[in-house]
């Protein structure tokens, strides 16, 4: 089936089989920052913003993205500069192995759109569908909160 999506701001048309998962479609476009972790709707490594809302793309079909706008980690940077959430993860060392990081950053960015000054509890609650196997949550939470500071300062 033919789908039309806006992927990181660029419109594209592709032919997909109905059973193709959205995460596999996205990775097939070369945007391999979207990871496949558990593949069972648990870990959130495949999180992508679908019309601005974070969703687990291992549990959507690519055909369901027809007409939607998708933002992956590759689409976070703005005018060549790091998105505040990326800058904050770098500054606060919000990653260890990095596997969960794209999902964490997208979920964090979506949280900050709704709540630019989240408490530690707010952040922990928001990222509770994203698992970090390094258990590096302390710095992830700090990074999301720091990104809120950067957004509010700018």
């Amino acid at each position, binding site marked *: *089936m033919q789908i039309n999506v806006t992927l990181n701001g660029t419109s594209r048309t592709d032919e997909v*089989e*109905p*059973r*193709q*998962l959205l995460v*596999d479609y996205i990775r097939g476009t070369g945007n391999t920052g979207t990871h496949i972790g558990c*593949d*069972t*709707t*648990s870990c*959130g490594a495949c*999180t992508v913003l679908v019309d601005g*809302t*974070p*969703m*687990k793309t291992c*549990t*959507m*079909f690519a*055909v*369901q993205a*027809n007409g939607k706008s998708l933002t992956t980690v590759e689409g976070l940077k703005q005018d060549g500069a790091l998105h505040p959430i990326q800058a904050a993860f770098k500054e606060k060392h919000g990653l260890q192995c990095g596997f969960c990081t794209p999902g964490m950053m997208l*979920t964090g960015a979506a949280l900050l759109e709704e709540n630019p000054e989240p408490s530690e509890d707010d952040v922990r*609650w*928001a*990222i*509770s*569908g*994203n698992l970090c196997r390094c258990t590096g949550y302390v710095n992830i939470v700090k990074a999301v909160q720091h990104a809120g500071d950067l957004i509010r300062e700018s």
Partner: protein
Amino acid sequence: MFPPAFEYSAPTTVEEVLATLAREGEGSRVLAGGQSLIPMMKLRLASPAFLVDINNVQGLDHIEAANGYIRIGALVRHRDIVNSELIGTTNHAMASAAPWIADPLVRNRGTLCGSVAHCDPEGDWNSVMLAARAEVVARSAGGERVIPIDDFIVDFFTNSLQPGEIVEEVRVPKYSGKGGGAYLKLERKIGDYATVAVASQLELDDAGKIAKAGIALTAVNNKNTRASAAEDVLVGETPSDELFREAGELAAQAANPETNVRGTAEWKREIVRVYTRRGLETALAQAQG
């Protein structure tokens, strides 16, 4: 992982959805949030030949009060329930359950009606629906029928929908007087299924006696289960600690849990006893407040 091949369509009207289901017959399934169906397809526990995606249908995302009911359309996501002021102010058990459905990302996509239809005995919503005595509005090309939740939940992953029918809406009765409710869920971690959970709802009459009581249990039987004896002991009585303890004992007797990785049967039954009592205490405080 990817599922077996299937055909797919995404109609934009309920009429087209029903016509497609009628044409494709028993091999067809409705795809709403897909947060249970897609994992089951990937694990090859379900292999529908045809998926009818209802996500593009307009007019199914309503949460509204009408004729004494809260009406919840087939495309209302768990997140919408969490954020609903109407539900937050009119149904305490639903409001307390919503934030504990799966995790935030799943709540962005999964639907209440889909969860109700799925009839997973470890699912949360059907206990809340039993406690609230909800009704399921089913629609097919032949028309509409309203199914009490007790008749809708048949068994392990089995509902009473006929081929060609969809869950168009779930209707939750509003309290007729003062009411309150709670959903107490024990889980190992966020996103896990309930180890045990108990939904409770109470409505009081003008004299402060219990006019209606709803108690239902998650993950302790082959389906979400109404604790009828516990409800019966409450109705018509003046609330008291002793009465709530008795209801807890009766609810525990309605539980037939398995010993598994989440705990022993004996321990789970004990949780039912305690959570029933605590849920009733919470419901009473809300109804009196």
